[in-house]
């Protein structure tokens, strides 16, 4: 569930044709327009446009609102999300905003706890995938040669393996019982497209003057990647992380839904799993299964829309569209 369509674009050409194909190249950040401006002004500019971009602001507000809800709301409850506190199977009411489960658990409380897990798995899973993907992409793209070949092979293999199937297998053997470990496994299998895209980007940046200059001045490869190449792709990397975040969230929801989620913690996928298993559909307990899906859709959708907005911010050509 990682890379949704928006990502396919950045990925584009290297996937099929290798370098020989002139790509509908990675559109962001490294473009001449952005590069011509000094760093501080670029950042200021980006911020300026970001705050005026409806997509970025709207998406950001939705995401932050959910984050705040997940962080704050559980603090107001003196009972746990699994406790039987109310009447069984009752619809939304003033006391139980999202109604109660068939056992009398508070759906709203489960929902806000689920949002916590959602953000956690998104941050950790997306973060890890970004880290792996970028590291491999940078190294492959900068070092080149045999290292590139080997990493490319690795990337291609992981890319073709269907991640869910692999995770199911791994789960069955190892057992994944906490959100961080779930995020870890998701991260391990979501990075390949990032690695490819970053590699292609690095490839093109590697021959730029400022990188040559840094190399001549005796800077090490690691430092060059960190100080010269990465900052020039920072906006792109940030957007990549957003996509990975959304992908991780969806992936985790899928795992939770088929019962491979963490135990003892509430997640939105688990809520759906519970609702389905306890016949909420047949018994008409819509308040049990609609909120978690809506929550995921809202968070991930808002992130994706933010991503398009950021794309417009970082890529001035698109602003007028």
């Amino acid at each position: 569930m990682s890379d949704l369509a928006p990502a396919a674009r950045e990925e584009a050409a290297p996937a099929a044709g290798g370098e020989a194909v002139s790509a509908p190249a990675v559109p962001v950040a490294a473009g001449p327009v952005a590069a011509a401006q000094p760093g501080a002004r670029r950042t200021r500019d980006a911020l300026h446009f970001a705050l005026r971009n409806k997509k970025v602001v709207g998406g950001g507000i939705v995401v932050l609102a959910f984050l705040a809800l997940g962080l704050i709301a559980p603090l107001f409850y003196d009972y746990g999300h699994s406790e039987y506190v109310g009447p069984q199977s009752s619809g939304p009411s003033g006391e139980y905003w999202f109604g109660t489960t068939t056992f009398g658990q508070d759906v709203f409380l489960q929902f806000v706890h689920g949002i916590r897990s959602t953000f956690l798995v998104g941050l950790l899973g997306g973060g890890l995938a970004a880290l792996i993907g970028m590291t491999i992409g940078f190294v492959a793209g900068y070092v080149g040669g045999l290292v590139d070949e080997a990493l490319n092979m690795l990337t291609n293999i992981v890319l073709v393996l269907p991640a869910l199937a692999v995770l199911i297998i791994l789960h069955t053997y190892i057992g994944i019982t906490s959100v961080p470990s779930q995020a870890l496994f998701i991260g391990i299998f979501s990075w390949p497209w990032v690695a490819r895209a970053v590699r292609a980007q690095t490839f093109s940046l590697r021959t730029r003057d400022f990188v040559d200059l840094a190399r001549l001045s005796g800077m090490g490869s690691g430092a060059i990647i960190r100080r010269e190449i990465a900052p020039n792709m920072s906006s792109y990397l940030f957007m990549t992380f957003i996509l990975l975040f959304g992908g991780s969230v969806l992936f985790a929801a899928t795992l939770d839904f088929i019962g491979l989620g963490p135990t003892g913690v509430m997640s939105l996928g688990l809520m759906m799993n519970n609702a389905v298993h306890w016949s909420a559909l047949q018994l008409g307990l819509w308040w049990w299964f609609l909120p978690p899906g809506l929550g995921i859709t809202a968070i991930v959708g808002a992130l994706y829309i933010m991503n398009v907005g950021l794309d417009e911010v970082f890529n001035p050509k698109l602003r007028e569209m």
Partner: protein
Amino acid sequence: MRRYFARKVAIYLLTFFVAVTLNWLIPRFMPGDPVLRMLTRTSVSNPDAIAPMREYYNNVFGLDVPLWRQYLNYWAELLQGNMGISVWLFPAPVTEVILDAVPYTLALLIPSILLSWYAGNKVGALAARRKWLDNTVLPLGYALTATPYMWIAIVLAWSLAIIAGVFPVAGGYSFDLQPSWSLVFFNSLIQHWFLPFLSLFLVAFGGWAIGMRNMIIYELEADYANYLEALGAPRRLIRRYAFRNALLPQLTGLALQLGVLVAGALVTEIVFGYPGLGRLILMAIQNQDFFLLQGAFLFIVIGVLIANFVIDIVYVLVDPRTRTGMTGGAA
């Protein structure tokens, strides 16, 4: 071009090799013992029976030879299409169990992948052209692609099958039918197929639509588009070119999305009680049926590899750059 394909095939073969090895490796070094499973299943209460039965099942599952032999046997059997015997559905061969389920999964996957790709690209291209369409398709597309597959399945099952009663709630075809080449049976198949298909289609459609919309916008900023505009070419021609060029990354995207779509199909099947691979995998997990799980895993890997290869071929057919770039000659 030959080099291109040779490279691709090499990667696929290597992936296959890794997948098979991984698949073979993991259960053998992880806790869990299929023999014990069978002994538990048959509820042996006679202590004397345990040792001989253990030996017997070890033999049935091919676990009574050294590891390296097991590995070679695994390959040998696999190449003959034999993936061992299911523990959960003992004594049914894994291949047989899987082959019974695969048609259903493919019937969901292939149409939903192709149609969502086609329709998504068309609509996405249209959206890039018209502001009002863009303003509706874009949010809808993002909402759809951000929707978890099972949730859309849940909503469809709840609203259309349970509340409205327009569609059946479970099964591959009506339970009062025997398979036959009749219209009634065909209708029943389609009815049971439609909702799972629709949920897969919708989510994927959203992704392709916004993907195409964004791609086109980038393509319209490409040099060739600028040049054509400077030469006064009408927008229509430029858009046509942009669409076609935008299709290529979308095609690559298709290869990338296969795994995700397969995952979507699995959870969708579970929601709709559709008798495909998804349910089989779920049961295999719950019953720790390693052999069945391995079989299903390999099957998915092979399926994805084949699909990738097909996409590679199509890519070469539609993108002259890969074709001519490799042969180096004019057509």
